[in-house]
Each structure stands twice: as structure tokens, then as C-alpha cells.
């Protein structure tokens, strides 16, 4: 209570100091929330690519592979399964410039692929696709929310653009299931069967080549080892595919994992930079305020020592005051950061641009950082107060 009253006695100074910490922790929270969002994406990608080998066309060629390549790949030692891959933009013709989100995507899904995948989907409502599904779709949560679809509803995919060409084709699918939120890519996906995907694949081919390319082609092949195969072993399998199967390019999982880790490190660096900013702005203002508080209260400190306060007790009182400043600034900065990130997420939801994710880890870091900032910044002034000679302090003229 005494600490709060002391802060209240110097309202403007206390406010400015707390504001310094508010800015720092606000920056930390918003940048951290963005970093957490991207870390989830990177972690998902890392998890995904550390359990499978993407195989595509050789460099410089159009992304088309004959389905017969799957049989060739399955003969390579160590390959447990291989599935064709198809994906299509949900909203063709949509103008995208720089995007931080994952666009809505229609993805082919073969239920037999599930046991090999590191990421396990879970159904929130309805049911999953079967090997014989036709005209059915399972939606990720973001897609379901964006198009306001529930199980049993129908959805036309891909979405017809406003300026659609006359021969634009889309198909009506029945929503049979909605996935639980994964907080990452699958939320933006609409899963259809491989057979339906091959139908869409034909639709998206240019009219001029549609007749010469049949649906025995695929955009790429996803190759799996036995569940639990290490990244190093998958790298070895990728090398074997490149050596033994002509006209394909298997990418080593470790190269992809490294690339995503590097992306994650960039965002961690941004968060760290925000934290350092908070340290400099907030920390210096706390040091300044607390030194002023100690100078102004020399006589009070002298009196407290005269009436029996131990050095450690005086140290503790001033550290608590500095820590409280840190906590108040941190709590306000954190709340403002959460409010802003939520507002921006809500605003970006319609365009699938949710950029921020406030996690319990981020909350703990922001508040602990604010407390530590106050305490560390308060150390020098508190030591100064605790070591004061009571006689000199009592004789000080304010």
C-alpha cells in the first residue's frame, strides 16, 4: 500500500515511467504473438517435412508427373508408401500480393495416407473422408468459418471468380466433416478425395492442352518411409529415388527442415529485438525514476534505518517498488498487446490473415520479463538506498 501511495505522490513521473514499460511490453507482446503464429506454422511444416519426402518434376520442368512414377518409387528400398498430391487455390483469380497467411486451398486426401503422416487430423464435427468418397469435403476450421458452412451444407469449389471466364467450371461438394483447429495450415484446407481432385485437376488445365493431358498425371508425389523413420534415413531414401527413378526430383527432408528452422530463427530474432527495445526504454526509465525516488527520500530511508530497518529490508522495499512499476507497465502493455492482436486477427479473419497467436508461453514471458525488468532496473537505486548512512540521510535537506 505504501508503495502504491509513493507512486501516486508523483503521478506524472510514475505514469511516464510505467508508460515506458507499457511500450516495451506492448512491442514484445505484439511481435511475440506474430512470432508465435509463425513458429506454429514453421513447426507444422518442420513436423510435416521431417516425416515425408516431396517428389516433383526435375528442376526447370512443369509440375506434372505421370502416376506411373508412384510404382517406380515404391520399388526403392525403404519406401513404405507413396501417394499422388493435388492442391488447388480455393479462390482462383484472387489478387494476392504479400501475404502472411496460408491461402485457402483444396487438397487431395487419401485416408490410407493417414498412418504415415506425422500430423494427426482430428474431426470436430461429422466424419472423415473414405477411400470411396465422391462429392464430399472435410473443411478446416478457418475455411468453415469463412464460408459459414456446417456439416450437411453444400459448397461450390473452387469459388467462382467475379470475372470468371465463360468456360469456368466448379463443382458442388457436401460438407461431411469439420476439423478441429490445428492453429496452422490444415485450418485453411478443404480436403477432397483423390478421385475428385483428379477431376478438378482436369478442370484447371488450359483448354488447349486439356485433351492431350490425362488424369494419370499428378502435380507431385508424397513419399513415406515406415512410421518413425529418421530424417537422416529419409534423406538417404530421397537420394536413392533420385538415383534410381528417372525424370523425378526428390527433395531431402533435412534441407526443407533446415529452411523452416531458419525462418523460425528470423522471427525469434525479431522478438528478441523487441525484448531488447523493451529493456532499453523501460529499464532506463525505471532506473531514472527509482534513483530520483531514492534521492527524494533520503530522510525517509535514514529514518527507517534509525527505527530498526535492516539494510536488506530497505533493499527489499525499493526493489519491490521497482518491480511493481515493472508489473504495472507489463500488465498494461500485455493487455493492450492482446487487445490489438485480437482486433487485427478479427479484422484479418475474412481475408484469412490471422497473424497473431498469444500463447500461455508468451503471456508468461511478457509478464516475467516485465517483473524482471523492474527488479533488475531497480537494483542499483535499491542498493544505493540500502547502503545509505542513516546519519547523513537524516541530516539531508530536501
Amino acid at each position: 500500500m505504501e508503495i502504491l501511495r509513493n507512486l501516486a505522490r508523483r503521478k506524472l513521473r510514475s505514469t511516464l515511467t510505467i508508460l515506458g514499460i507499457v511500450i516495451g511490453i506492448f512491442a514484445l507482446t505484439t511481435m511475440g504473438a506474430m512470432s508465435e503464429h509463425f513458429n506454429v506454422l514453421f513447426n507444422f511444416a518442420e513436423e510435416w517435412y521431417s516425416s515425408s519426402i516431396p517428389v516433383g518434376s526435375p528442376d526447370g520442368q512443369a509440375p506434372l508427373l505421370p502416376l506411373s512414377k508412384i510404382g517406380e518409387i515404391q520399388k526403392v528400398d525403404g519406401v513404405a508408401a507413396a501417394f499422388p498430391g493435388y492442391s488447388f487455390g480455393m479462390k482462383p483469380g484472387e489478387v494476392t500480393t504479400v501475404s502472411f497467411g496460408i491461402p485457402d486451398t483444396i487438397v487431395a486426401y487419401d485416408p490410407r495416407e493417414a498412418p504415415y503422416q506425422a500430423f494427426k487430423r482430428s474431426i470436430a464435427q461429422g466424419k472423415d473422408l473414405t477411400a470411396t468418397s465422391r462429392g464430399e469435403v472435410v473443411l478446416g476450421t478457418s475455411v468453415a468459418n469463412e464460408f459459414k458452412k456446417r456439416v450437411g451444407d453444400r459448397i461450390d469449389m473452387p469459388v467462382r471468380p467475379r470475372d470468371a471466364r465463360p468456360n469456368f467450371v466448379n463443382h458442388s461438394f457436401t460438407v461431411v466433416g469439420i476439423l478441429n483447429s490445428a492453429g496452422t495450415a490444415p485450418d485453411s484446407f478443404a480436403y477432397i478425395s483423390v478421385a475428385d481432385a483428379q477431376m478438378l485437376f482436369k478442370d484447371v488445365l488450359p483448354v488447349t492442352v486439356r485433351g492431350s493431358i490425362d488424369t494419370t498425371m499428378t502435380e507431385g508425389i508424397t513419399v513415406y518411409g515406415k512410421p518413425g523413420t529418421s530424417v537422416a534415413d529419409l534423406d538417404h531414401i530421397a537420394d536413392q529415388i533420385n538415383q534410381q527413378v528417372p525424370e523425378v526430383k526428390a527433395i531431402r527432408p533435412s534441407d526443407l527442415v533446415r529452411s523452416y528452422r531458419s525462418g523460425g530463427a528470423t522471427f525469434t530474432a525479431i522478438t528478441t529485438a523487441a525484448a531488447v527495445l523493451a529493456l532499453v526504454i523501460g529499464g532506463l526509465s525505471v532506473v531514472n525514476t527509482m534513483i530520483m525516488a531514492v534521492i527524494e527520500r533520503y530522510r525517509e530511508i535514514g529514518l527507517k534505518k534509525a527505527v530498526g530497518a535492516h539494510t536488506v529490508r530497505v533493499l527489499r522495499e525499493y526493489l519491490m517498488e521497482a518491480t511493481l512499476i515493472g508489473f504495472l507497465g507489463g500488465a498494461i502493455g500485455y493487455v493492450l498487446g492482446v487487445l490489438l492482436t485480437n482486433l487485427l486477427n478479427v479484422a484479418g479473419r475474412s481475408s484469412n490473415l490471422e497473424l497473431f497467436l498469444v500463447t500461455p508461453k508468451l503471456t508468461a514471458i511478457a509478464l516475467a520479463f516485465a517483473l524482471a525488468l523492474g527488479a533488475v532496473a531497480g537494483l542499483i537505486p535499491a542498493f544505493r538506498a540500502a547502503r545509505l548512512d542513516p546519519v547523513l540521510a537524516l541530516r539531508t535537506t530536501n
Partner: protein
Amino acid sequence: MASIELVDLTKHYRQGKTVVRAVEGVSLEIGAGEFVSVVGRSGSGKTTMLDLIGLLLRPTSGTVLIDGQDVGRLGDDRRADVRSQRIGFIFQEFNLLPALNVVENVMLPLRYAKARTKDGRTRTLELLESVGLEDRARHRPDELSGGQQQRVAIARALVNRPTVVLGDEPTGSVDTQTSKELVGLMRWLNREEGVTFVIVTHDLELAGHADRVIRLSDGRVVGDEPIRHAA
């Protein structure tokens, strides 16, 4: 047993290249429950002697005994404990904490006392009644007159039931009438509580109300006389 005993007490300190002999070989005894005033010109060593008795300064040589215990050479924390348990202070500038109200200011020494007294709040309210401020318990120091603030400081000095109260010019910042009232209050508390009072003062009115006047000059005791009061 004497409440305070000083044996050949000396305090020297450096001021630039000069050694200031603030207290020079002072030996005296002050009995339990005595009301003693210490007088002398500025620079005579009065306040330094008071700070040595109050364990706020360490002597250069000599001994300070409080209630028979040699306390002059204790470590910082033990000295703080002795101050908390046995010594109360009254200062010229009151030294009340502006963020605390009257009750909280009086109770401040209890916050730092090792052995917390359960009846601290009751004791505080009794003392506030004794000093005539029971109706100002929730006021802040800046809402009180100088005399009222010094009454709060007197109550604070007594809250831990010390054996000795040390006053450094306690009437130095109040008018004559208030000074008389404060002197009367301190004398009354001295008798009621049986506490030894040692008051450094320039105020002859205050000095005249003591049981005994000790005169200092150049850090030495040059006079030590009892005062007889009319019955």
C-alpha cells in the same frame, strides 16, 4: 543500573585534511527514567554524542552501554535491532513519512521490530490518545500542524516500549507555545512510561524542565548539574 553509560567516548572524523574531534573522552551515566537535557553551542558535539548513544554512529574509541550491554561495537544489523527494541528517536524535522497516515507512521518501528508485538495497534491508539491526536489517526502528515506532527513523532518514538528516547532539538521547528506543550508532553510521558529521555536542545525553556543538564563544549563535558524543581 544506569540506563545509559558512556566510558571515555571519543568520536573523531576527517573533514578534508583536518581531523574534527567531535566528542573527546566523554564519560557519564544516565539513570533509568531520568530526563536529561544536553546543551552547548553549535559544534560542541551534542548531536554527535546523541548519534553515538543512538547507535547511528560508531565511536572512534570508548564504550557505549545501554541497559548494561556494550552496544558500541555491534554489527550493523544488531545495532538496528537494539535501536528497534530499546531506543526511540525524535527529530527536529519530525521525519514523518508523507505516504503514511498518522497511525501508520506511529506503527512504522513495529514493521521492523524482530519481536512483533501483538498489541501494536492497541498500543498505537493508546499513545495517540496520550498525545491528544486520537481524532487525527487517519490524517496524512501534511494535514497536520508542526506541533501535531511532532506529537506523532513522539508517539512513534515510544511505540516499541523503548528504555531510552533520544531527542535532537525536538522543539526546534515549532513556536514557543507549541514548544511548551511538547515539553510538558515529553515530561509527562517520561513519568508515565518510566522511559529515559535525553534531549539535545538550544531551548533553555526545555533544558530548564529536565532533571539534569549536561553542558558540552568542544566535545567535552564541561558541566553536569541536577535541576531542582519546586514540588
